């Protein structure tokens, strides 16, 4: 294989990782703050995609790009207010069962409303085409997708690191009782974080609907690699998740590139195993006292 093709695969793999990032960041946020392992995260991704199919005939893809994630985020806040909040102090296994059940209900509901066969959806005309960078070819649509994803990741980082909102959330991750003792109620922050995280999953659903197939079980396809990313990156670490997502994309892309495609999925689990062996808290995982 030529060096150029190898470099193409490296670059493409890195870009591929960004799709996991939108899902993984939300998962990591919700877990760090509330201790909820949200197995229903993939379902919100699927709902985002289906919502896009339903509303884009009326508002266009651009309209759906705004409306779908917001609607999914609101749904997320409702779930947080009525379900998740009852499980913050409970045994984690209970919230695991709750969200696993929710994901099954959501998948079957989509199947009952829209049918099991995948639904037809294509890239809108104005986003079709390819971009060339020397010999490297990339889809124009994916370039836009990356731009949006990068903007979201940057925005989230700013929100968490540079605003008073972020300071409370970060303090809540480390020591919720101390935050309470200081007279700050974490409740609205919990709801906001759930809304943000789940909204990002909805956004991923909108962005991937034109290039992946839209079917009821699509959430399952993305949730497992997203969990791998969170575990590799380490809980509570923003940049850990970002680096892990790129790493997972890179390992998968290179495996396919060098001709071991059959092992490309297995390779990311092997990567997870190695990281867990040598750095049990993940690459950049912080020590969170209440999870130790």
């Amino acid at each position, binding site marked *: 294989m030529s060096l150029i093709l190898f470099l193409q695969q490296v670059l493409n793999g890195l*870009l591929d990782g960004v799709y996991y990032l939108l899902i993984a960041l939300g998962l990591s946020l919700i877990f760090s703050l509330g201790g909820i392992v949200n197995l229903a995260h993939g379902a919100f991704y699927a709902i985002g995609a289906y919502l896009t199919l339903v509303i884009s005939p009326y508002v266009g893809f651009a309209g759906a790009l705004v409306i779908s994630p917001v609607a999914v985020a609101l749904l997320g806040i409702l779930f947080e207010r009525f379900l998740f909040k009852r499980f913050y102090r409970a045994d984690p296994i209970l919230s695991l069962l709750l969200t696993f059940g929710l994901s099954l209900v959501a998948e079957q509901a989509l199947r009952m409303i829209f049918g099991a*066969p995948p639904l037809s959806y294509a890239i809108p005309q104005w986003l079709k085409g390819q971009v060339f960078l020397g010999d490297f070819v990339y889809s124009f649509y994916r370039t836009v997708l990356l731009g949006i994803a990068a903007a979201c990741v940057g925005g989230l980082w700013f929100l968490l690191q540079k605003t008073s909102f972020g300071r409370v959330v970060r303090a809540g991750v480390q020591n919720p009782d101390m935050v309470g003792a200081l007279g700050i109620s974490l409740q609205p922050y919990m709801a906001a974080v759930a809304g943000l995280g789940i909204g990002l999953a909805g956004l991923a659903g909108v962005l991937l609907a034109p290039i992946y197939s839209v*079917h009821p079980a699509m959430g399952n396809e993305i949730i497992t690699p997203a969990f791998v990313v969170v575990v590799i990156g380490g809980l509570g670490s923003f940049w850990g998740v970002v680096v892990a997502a790129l790493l997972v994309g890179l390992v998968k892309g290179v495996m396919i590139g060098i001709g071991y495609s059959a092992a490309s999925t297995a390779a990311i689990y092997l990567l997870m195993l190695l990281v867990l062996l040598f750095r049990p808290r993940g690459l950049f995982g912080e020590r969170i006292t209440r999870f130790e």
Partner: protein
Amino acid sequence: MSHDLDISRRGLLKGVGGAALVAGIGMPAIVRAQSDVIRIGHLTPRTGFLGPLGEYGVMAADLAVEEINAAGGVLGRKIELLKEDSVNPQTASTKAERMVERDKVACIVGEISSASCLTIAQVAQRTKTLFFNTGGNSDALRSTDCKRYMFHVESQNSMYVKSVGRSFLQAGMVKGKKWYSLTADYAFGHDLLKVAKRFMEGNGGQFAGDDLVPTDATDFSSYLLKIRNAKPDLVIINLAGAQTTNFLKQYSEFGLTFPVGGFGFDTALAWAAGKGNFVGTWPVVWHHLIETAGTKKFVDAFTKKYGKPPENQAWGDYMAMKIVAQSMAEAKSLESDKLLAHLEGGAKFDVLKTREGYFRKSDHQLMHEMYAVTALPADKIKNQWDIFSSSGPVPGPNEPLEAIASTPDEAVCTFPA
């Protein structure tokens, strides 16, 4: 008094015991009254990566039973369909066993996964219950793993490869050409790749590359870069389930223009690719645009009931139910061995095509016509369903139906006792 009470207590116990006994005897009577219906088990994946196709199978099986019962049933009895999600090979086997042992089904119909077909067939063989495979393609099921109690309405991989292979040969895409293939990494894919390589080598072509794709892969960009670099004359897609849809969408997204084809195909996956994304030439067992009276009637009835046309998996399950009903009526029996003898005796069935089909005695494969469909260019597409043009029936009218099936050198079936 107390003595009397004792007796009466004993009497009460006797009474209760008697009642239980009567109920025990009575129960089978009730079951027998219910078994005036003929129970048929329907097992197919309804979730997971083959679930989208299974749903078409279920809809079509329901429609077939409705039509059979409306026409008076079979041997004066109505058919009752017991439907289950087969999930995976292990669950499929457990459910098949329960259908046979507990529900006393007359036979089992369905399945798409070649791996699950095998586990159901093992139950069928052990319990001497007929199993009609409506969607498992692998040649192994018709050779090394063949079973006397399993019949195949779905075509084998060899038939798929040879029917679309003729189109590729005619278009000059085989001899001296390079193919690049992507193959689903499980039983069906491995079997298909073997048959495809045999075809390619036998006709003077070679592979520029072949990649096995994990069944949970959703993104094909890395593969697309490799294909672009290899510059093949034909890209062969042997993926399974919704993956084919993902591939077609991303192939058009990356602007690749090498001719595309495949040896396994489901119309629902092309419909889902979206306008302008479906390209290439593909084999099908049946499609909704075939110009025969039988097909028109089936398409009309299905569209009326479900609001969309049936796809090839729907044909498989619809046909299997009709074949089962017709065989029971003709053999005047529900017994597996009598039905088996009738089917092996060369019974003919209207399979909604120009010629009647029959089961080949040597491996129980349905001999019938197949088709190769080619995607229409975007500007010729009138609606979301009619997105391809079709070849005539393969094999042609002057050839025997067995012309496209596996030959004895390619696959041999020795039925286990």
